[in-house]
């Protein structure tokens, strides 16, 4: 194992200490593992709360700030946070207008957020929920834990965050979040496995010359292993998988997302191929975001997320945002 860490057990609190000193505009509770925008709760504003296992940074804690999340709670590496954190985050985010839980569809996240919602409601906080399940690689959803939430989480947090910033009520924020979630699909590939601090070695063996198609963001293998493909072939495969499920669509938001260890220069090359393939299929791309946003520790690879970009979605996407991980117009 080689990691830039002290000890595996301290990875999360150490990172939170780092966030605290690097981002004075955030209030970081290292002990209780909650990251909150310093001015929360913002009067008259619905609170946006998300969280999940650590290892996907900047998601979620890096998306706390005006125009996006009010609070995030990071769990252990690849482990859903516990209800206590979520309730604390909800309490910090709630100005009385209620909070929206943005939840990625993993058994752990769903169970813990459900428990938290109950506890928060007990404390008098109105809680809405949106479930992310954008990963088309998980098929036969009836016989699985359902589709995973991956890249679309960023779209939902940004767009719903912008609407909340405008002062819209919970019902509307929840409804736009649902729409964005329903309008989004993702597909990811891995060129390497992940090394988690707890395990200290790669989670699976991926021989040279092979890649995993249809991976998630927790170091689990994909649906299929294939001989290595070119960036252009991978783009065709990913776009095909996404569009087949999304169906006919007009303009889209595109996230060309790195899993963590793939150099930006490769992501941009992949982005070019994604645009080429979308162009061939007559799908216009309204906005493109390229970079490491929804990651899987040190995994090499990339994912593609497309979201149908209706007018309101685009307007809210373009609205100012000011977080460590995503920032424009402010």
């Amino acid at each position, binding site marked *: 194992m080689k990691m830039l860490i002290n000890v*595996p057990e301290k990875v999360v609190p150490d990172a939170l200490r780092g966030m605290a000193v690097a981002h004075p505009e955030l209030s970081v509770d290292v002990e209780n593992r909650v990251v909150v925008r310093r001015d929360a709760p913002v009067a008259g504003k619905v609170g946006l709360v998300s969280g999940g*296992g650590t290892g996907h940074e900047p998601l979620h804690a890096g998306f706390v700030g005006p125009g996006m999340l009010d609070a995030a709670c990071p*769990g*252990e*590496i*690849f*482990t*859903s*946070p*516990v*209800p*206590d954190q979520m309730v604390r985050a909800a309490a910090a985010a709630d100005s009385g207008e209620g909070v929206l839980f943005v939840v990625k569809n*993993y*058994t*752990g996240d769903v*169970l*813990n957020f459900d*428990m938290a919602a109950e506890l928060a409601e007990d404390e008098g906080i109105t809680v809405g929920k949106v479930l992310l399940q954008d990963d088309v*690689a*998980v*098929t*036969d959803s009836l*016989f*699985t*834990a359902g589709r*995973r939430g991956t890249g679309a989480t960023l779209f939902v947090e940004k767009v719903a965050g912008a609407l909340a910033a405008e002062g819209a009520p919970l019902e509307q924020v929840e409804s736009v979040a649902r729409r964005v979630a329903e309008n989004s699909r993702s597909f990811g590939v891995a060129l390497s496995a*992940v090394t*988690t601090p*707890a*395990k200290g070695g790669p*989670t*699976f063996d991926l021989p040279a010359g092979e890649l995993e198609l249809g991976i*998630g963001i*927790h*170091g*689990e*293998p994909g*649906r299929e292993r294939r001989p290595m493909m070119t960036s252009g072939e991978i783009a065709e495969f990913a776009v095909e998988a996404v569009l087949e499920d999304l169906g006919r669509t007009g303009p889209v938001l595109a996230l060309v997302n790195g899993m963590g260890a793939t150099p930006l220069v490769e992501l941009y090359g992949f982005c070019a191929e994604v645009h080429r393939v979308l162009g061939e299929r007559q799908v216009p791309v309204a906005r493109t975001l390229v970079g490491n946003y929804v990651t899987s520790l040190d995994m090499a690879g990339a994912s593609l997320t497309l979201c149908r970009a209706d007018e309101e979605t685009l307007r809210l996407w373009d609205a100012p945002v000011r977080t460590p991980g995503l920032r424009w117009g402010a």
Partner: protein
Amino acid sequence: MSEELDTGFFADWLRAAAAAIDREAAHLTELDSPIGDADHGSNLQRGFTAAQAALEKEPQDTPGALLLFTGRQLISTVGGASGPLYGTLLRRTGKALGDAAAVPLPELTTALREAADAVAQLGGAAPGDATMLDALYPALDALDAGSAPGDAFPAAARAAAEGAEATVPLQARKGRASYLGERSVGHEDPGAASTALLFQALATAYGEGA
């Protein structure tokens, strides 16, 4: 049916369980690697260690309170899928035991079955889906069949271990392993393996106490 299990016994069990989890944490995480996210061992280790520490500070005085308290601790410290599921298992068992100072085996078995059903409902899983349930239910059946803890606990431990092993050829239908589809076949479910450890600890705690 004269023999009753008291708070001391349940405390021994949880201690033995924590020790077993501690010893096998790396192995459980290993099992969670090829088909999951390589955290099951460290998840449970964190939770059972925290629960033991909390019990040091706040000892509980009935079997029911002890299990309820431990379950709450697991929910507050484990996270992931296994935190709420194991937390619910212990909490619901504790709740069913009420405030009796000691419980006979059949009552414990009934309480565990009620709790197991709550876990199945919470996770939406059924036996055969390659989850912890595949070790849990066989163990409960063995408890049912047993006449006294001295034979029922070791039988339950064996049944849980066999149940865990029996997940190897299964295709996972719940939890992360299900994402793999057919590729999940050929791997032992980590949660089933940890359930087997819990029942092994039950037998050990009883054997040593005896």
